[in-house]
């Protein structure tokens, strides 16, 4: 139970047990990542040996192949594309989404509940179902292999989640706060920007992180819609899957490398992440 000051002090045993259990959980979470990095460092025969080798002579061959030698474009171009597309789509999704969420929360008109559900329903469809229609659509407007194509797609995929989460947050803001500002002569936009947005900062942070994770990791559509100019890290990764199997070392190296940026991005917003995910819990 949430311990109050009186109880926490006495129960050091409970604290020790809790810490122990937490470490086990973290261990389970990190073990696959440990496997990922060690596989990237192992030679071919070490990777596929039975029994699995725990102590091995690390080789950077996979990393060298993955990052130095590879292809006409070096990996930095792919990284740049990924960062640009993820950042732009996250900012757009959270920006447009917060406006829409505010409008839905503050001006409930007839059918606003249905509109909210309709927006959420756009999240149900798995991207794999609509690869070809989306490709043909973007091609008809000449957006194939452009950053804009992926930015628009990821924005629209994230919008539904952002609007849905932030709508709850805006609904929590006491109306009096905003009415006071209105009386003081703020316009509606100023109220939104100066009063409402700052109050939902945790929500913004949480939705930003989750949108960024989606955009950063999306694999299938990125492979189809882009060729070279706008290709992202997942497209770079698919270059390592041959028809007869996968280049394991390189695959793991790129996979491990791909986690780092998103992790750093999250560390900045981590404090807000917790308060940002309190959907609808009773205040």
């Amino acid at each position: 139970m949430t311990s109050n000051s009186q109880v926490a002090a006495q129960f050091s045993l409970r604290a020790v047990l809790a810490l122990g259990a937490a470490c086990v959980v973290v261990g389970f979470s990190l073990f696959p990542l440990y496997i990922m990095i060690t596989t990237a460092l192992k030679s071919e025969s070490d990777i596929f040996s039975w029994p699995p080798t725990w102590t091995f002579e690390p080789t950077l061959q996979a990393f060298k192949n993955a990052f130095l030698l590879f292809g006409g474009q070096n990996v930095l171009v792919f990284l740049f594309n990924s960062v640009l597309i993820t950042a732009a789509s996250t900012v757009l999704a959270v920006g447009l989404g917060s406006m829409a969420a505010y409008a839905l929360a503050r001006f409930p008109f007839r059918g606003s509940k249905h509109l909210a559900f309709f927006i959420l329903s756009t999240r149900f469809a798995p991207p794999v179902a609509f690869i070809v229609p989306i490709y043909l659509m973007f091609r008809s407007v000449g957006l194939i292999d452009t950053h804009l194509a992926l930015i628009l797609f990821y924005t629209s995929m994230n919008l539904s989640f952002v609007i849905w989460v932030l709508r709850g947050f805006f609904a929590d803001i006491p109306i009096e706060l905003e009415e006071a500002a209105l009386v003081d002569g703020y316009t509606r936009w100023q109220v939104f920007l100066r009063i409402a947005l700052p109050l939902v900062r945790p929500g913004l942070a949480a939705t930003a992180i989750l949108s960024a994770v989606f955009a950063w990791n999306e694999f299938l559509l990125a492979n189809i819609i882009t060729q070279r100019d706008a290709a992202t890290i997942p497209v770079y990764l698919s270059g390592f899957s041959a028809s007869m199997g996968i280049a394991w070392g390189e695959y793991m190296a790129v996979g491990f490398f791909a986690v780092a940026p998103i992790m750093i991005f999250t560390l900045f917003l981590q404090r807000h992440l917790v308060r940002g995910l309190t959907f609808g819990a009773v205040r």
Partner: protein
Amino acid sequence: MHFENKQSWIKKAAAMAVAGAVSSIAVAPASAEGVLNGETIRILAIGDPVFQVMQRIHGDLEEMAGGTIELDVRGFDVLRQQVLLNAQNDVSNYDLISVDLPQFGEYKGFLVDLAGYVESSGMDWQDFHEAAWTGAYHDQMQLGIPIQPHPEIFAYRVDLFEEAGLEPPRTTEQVLAAAKALHGSKDGLSGICWNGARGTPLGQTITMVMGSHGLPVIAMDAIEGGFDLGNVRPENMHPQMESDTASEMAAYLMELMKFSPPGILNMAWDERVRVFAQGGCAMTYIWSGRSAIYELDEDAEARGKVSYLPHPAGPNGLNVSTLGGWFLSIPDNLPEDRRDLAWSVTEWLTSPEMMAEYTKHGNCVAPRHSVSVDEEVVARCPVIPFVDAMATNGEIAGWQRPPVPEIQQIFDILGAEFHEALAGAESPEDALKEAQRQLDRTMRRAGYY
């Protein structure tokens, strides 16, 4: 150039090969000022070894070519989607695309006929393995130049066989006998590794093993020594999964299950070769180029102890290995002015010198007789002479996996339905009957009959 019938080809090719072998090929870089002279070539490639080698030596390649090489590498499914989507653009985004042998049936509508270029450039096309060259020959058009075609052949551990006094397995009975004898004879040793994973892997296994038992999965016209993949007409599209050959094939696969390593139901492609390389199985079906996994790795247990045979033949089948692998083709929506450049790059990338260069970096494939006899190449990749011999004896063919647009559906249906039988969830007969029904429905939906 008028191509006589198949027969004369083989004789002429053999004669040329002997002559070519005399002058040992010094691996020299391409002609001086480079084939690109400043231009940019855009290639859509698969992540297979030859293209990965190109990526690894990308700097030198551009230097030799004297221009920039844009190499977009994709996985199998994504590549095919990109090729088909690219075909619908009015101007192609790529100068060269990579095509897998069975895909010619599907792509032949939008590929350039290279026969004219072959003739005008004086390319020594007969240096190529006959099955490789004709693999891209459809509706009297040469739609692609082989760059990494290699057959799926049969590898076995010579040391284990000698130890157990077993004959080299040329027939399926011998395979089963050897597998039974060797399975479990050593700690962690299974009889045989093969593609048992659901979907495309098992689907391809079925088409090939049925070929070894003497019949393709669809009713193609029989020709001397095999079946005609050059022109498949609608009446050839009838599936033959309820034939006796199909039952023999099914029986053989069910038997194999008894002598397979753990996790066979999920084993596919390189994984079987890796288990074989570590000494996990005594025999394995293997795409010849993947022998590099153990041939080039000092501490692989199987290194230097492996010999190769064509696919073991069924009771009244034939010893014929299935050819697969990659060709370079030019999409026909590539503007005329780019085609010469595309051709000269193709000619260069598939030249004997370049093919020898690829073998230095782990691509043990050389579909040219001249390269197959180069001592250095053979030292690096022992499998190459075996493949060369099989090519010369006509033990390699491309018809087992019919190059028709529905090939992927064929793999999927066979690979999904028969997996039920392998996993014991359905009897082999029912699985074959269901596969036949679904293939029939697919062909009817496609409008063949």
